[in-house]
């Protein structure tokens, strides 16, 4: 941080008004990232203010991290510097909502739950269920390209963003894309911001594509005896015309008791495959019949869930990363991205590794997507934790995928690059970062290669 903090603070204050910033230590400590506590939190309420804050921060040599509800702040390498937090909780406007066009434009602070509530009255939704139980804001969801089990049918925010406005450290507001569903004018800068974790600019408005809500829903639970059978089930379902909305496999070490309200799979060594289907009565009937048929052929127990169990299952599956973390502050939560075919094999390796390390684990696998979340529940200590993580990373890479450490104790985090090693496209990423944020004002050091 530059020497002249006081005059900078004055300028922020002049810019936003006293009431829109705080230096209160208690407040600042709630916004700590990986142990680093900011000196200042600002609460801009317009896009122009965000842009001005960014410029001022850059000019003052401050490092800044944007956030709203802090549901994903633990993802990323420890920040190299962190002087101020930029809270977007004052930006919750819906600028444009046209149900017949299936589009909506919102400010980044709006929570997913609020948006869903707004559009549900027109029987629409934004089919995303990332961790955070609806508390995550749209700005954060887009900046992290955060998704959950619904990704199976609907994809990730990347597939739903039509356009956005971005505040840059140059103090500009940049427009990219638009409000229409098809648009190829100019470079798709929005793609760069999606999944950039606030390291390039701050999203100040995002336009999204909405979808019609499915008529009825039903959740089915299948219990494959082992991962081999789970793989056969997955193959059969993906090759069938069934198109479930969500399909996850829940795995936990024997004797793992996570929480009273946890889905059943996490209470035992049983595998549970949960499938969420949507549509009309006749569609659900057909899906049930087909699933039952497949289950029978593979001798897998099959049942249809009651509404409350279903709700409970999906809330936990979507929020896996967060609620595991809450219950086990020392847990290591890993996200493994794999070719679809490798999920079960990786899970089996993970079970073995956890057993070797004498640690309990729980996992949630998006079977049709190839994304697996693994949580190592017991505190291992930094050295053992690192050893286990590296073993699993090695397994993931051998299967043609990558491993990302999404959450872990700080001392372990200091020993790793949570994103893994940069590859041959890193140099371009680094140059892009410099093109957008040459003074490294935005979340310095947090992205891949400590960019």
């Amino acid at each position, binding site marked *: 941080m530059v020497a002249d903090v006081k005059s900078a603070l004055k300028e922020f204050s002049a810019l936003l008004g006293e009431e829109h910033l705080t230096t209160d230590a208690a407040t600042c400590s709630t916004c700590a990232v990986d142990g680093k506590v900011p000196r200042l939190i600002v609460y801009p309420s317009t896009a122009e203010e965000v842009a001005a804050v960014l410029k001022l921060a850059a000019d003052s040599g401050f490092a800044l991290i944007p956030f709203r509800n802090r549901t994903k702040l633990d993802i990323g390498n420890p920040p190299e510097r962190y002087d101020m937090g930029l809270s977007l909780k004052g930006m919750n406007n819906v600028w444009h909502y*046209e*149900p*017949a*066009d299936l589009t909506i434009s919102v400010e980044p602070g709006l929570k997913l739950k609020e948006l869903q509530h707004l559009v549900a009255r027109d029987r629409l939704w934004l089919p995303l269920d990332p961790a955070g139980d609806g508390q995550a804001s749209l700005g954060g969801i887009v900046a992290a*390209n955060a998704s959950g089990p619904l990704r199976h049918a609907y994809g*990730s925010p990347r597939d739903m963003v039509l356009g956005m406005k971005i505040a840059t450290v140059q103090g500009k*507001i*940049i427009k*990219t894309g*638009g*409000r*229409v*569903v*098809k*648009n*190829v*004018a*100019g*470079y*798709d*800068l929005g*793609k*760069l911001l*999606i*999944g950039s974790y606030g390291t390039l600019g701050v999203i100040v408005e995002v336009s999204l594509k909405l*979808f*019609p809500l499915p*008529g009825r829903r039903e959740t089915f639970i299948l219990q494959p005896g082992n991962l081999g059978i789970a793989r056969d089930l997955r*193959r059969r379902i*993906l*090759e069938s*015309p*069934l198109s479930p909305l969500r399909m996850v496999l829940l795995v936990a070490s024997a004797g793992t008791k996570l929480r009273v309200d946890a889905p059943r799979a996490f209470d035992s060594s049983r595998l549970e495959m949960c499938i969420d289907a949507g*549509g*009309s009565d*006749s*569609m659900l009937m*057909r*899906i049930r019949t087909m699933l039952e048929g497949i289950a029978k052929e593979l001798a897998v127990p099959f049942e249809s869930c009651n509404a409350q169990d279903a709700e409970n299952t999906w809330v936990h599956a979507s929020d896996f990363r967060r609620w595991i973390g809450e219950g086990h502050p020392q847990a290591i939560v890993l996200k493994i*991205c*794999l*070719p*679809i*075919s490798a999920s079960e094999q990786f899970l089996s390796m993970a079970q073995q590794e956890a057993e070797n390390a004498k640690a309990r684990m729980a996992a949630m696998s998006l079977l049709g997507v*190839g*994304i697996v979340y693994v949580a190592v529940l017991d505190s291992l200590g930094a050295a053992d934790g690192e050893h286990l993580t590296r073993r699993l990373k090695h397994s993931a890479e051998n299967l043609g995928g*990558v491993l*990302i450490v999404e959450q872990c104790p700080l001392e372990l985090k200091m020993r790793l690059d949570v*994103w*893994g090693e940069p590859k*041959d*496209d890193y*140099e*371009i*990423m680094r*140059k*892009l970062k410099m*093109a957008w944020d040459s003074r490294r004002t935005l979340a310095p050091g947090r*992205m*891949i290669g400590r960019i």
Partner: protein
Amino acid sequence: MKSPPLIRELVRATNTEAVLWRAEDLLLYEYDALSVMRQPEAVVFPTTTEEVVRVVGIAAQQGVSVIPRGAGTGLSGGATVAERGILIALSRMNKIVEIDLENQRARVQPGVVNLDLSRAVEDAGYYFAPDPSSQKACTLGGNVAENSGGPHTLAYGVTTHHALGLEIVLSDGDVIHTGAKFWDRPGYDLTGVVVGSEGTLGIVTEITVRLCRLPEAVKTLLAIFDRVLDATRTVAAITARGITPAALEMMDGFTLRAVEAATGAGYPIDSAAVLLIEVEGLREAVEEQAQAIEAVCRENSAREVRCARSEEERALLWKGRKNAFGALGRIAPNYYVQDGVIPRTRLPEMLEFTAEVEKRYALRIGNIFHAGDGNLHPLIMFDARDRSECERVVRAARDLIAKCVEMGGSITGEHGVGVEKNELMPLIFSEDDLEMQRRIKGVFNPSGLFNPGKVLPTGKMCGELRIQIGAGA
């Protein structure tokens, strides 16, 4: 005739069969499907990434630009030469490198033809979803460059949703690999930026794409209307009913009379407009959605709603639609197709405006829309030998685009900016927006080696359409 030094170097980097340089051959590389531009210094046909790297190196050293070209079916001039340069024609890099069905992926070279990929995996029950009307000829490399769409992108998204990884040769000769076979590789989404960059950021030499499962059932409906307004209203009414068809296309009476004359697909020539609607998925879903759509159409005064009874009938209807541009090509010697996008609820208004423009400039305009997406393809008919008509065409096109922008839409939905619309970019982007785009280009392509004069405005003809209308035949 002895070849110039540049050519000898290019031959050394590849082989004699891989370089065209004689005047009579270069003549054939001055056009694409839009327009006629200038001739390249040479055309090189690499077959490997290494050859591309060598050619790029020579170009950089000699200070000539490099323009990638697939099949040359683009409609914005992207694969033509705007400034002095050599063309890298990727038509011989046409191998499907890998098909991995369990992972729903394929790895292809950029010269593979879109439909050839779908054909290669159809027996196993898969296909590549983006289906531009030129899909039987256009290449996947071109699709990546233009972020191509097509009728079925309404439900399945455009190329950017299906291209997951790229191998790219950069202007300094470095080869990078973006994205991956799996989702969510850490780091910035370079694939997402390069898709749709129209060959201005690098030369894509390999593409990893997603393959989709063919649906169990498909139903194709043809809704016939006596008033255009009713057809346009129906579009929003269908989505308002919670139905997302796989495709929702509209053609006006003028267009479908031409289409009918060309294909004999059974389009009603006495109607004012038709909607071609396709629903797919689970049998039960398709059945119910088709019924619901039929009801919506009738509520909106459709005269008749037909359902294709066989695969042949369905194929014929689509043949009519996919060949619609060409069918209108039979009516007048030349046409100019626009590619504006508007929010779909504004369709009725836009059509009225189009009719006004038609009158204002005394032109005939055929209306073909990807109506579900709000992506308009008004086709302006003309005879290039009539210079005054050519001028009116350009003015009419400009008015139509301006209207799209005014309605909150875009200047191009799927055809790209290229050399056609780069001077129109300021209509939708501020100088700040454009400056950021220039920076992106500066990162990938600092020397401006790749495809200069495209996408970003050059400032030479501010606010003008740059099409050289009617050149050639």
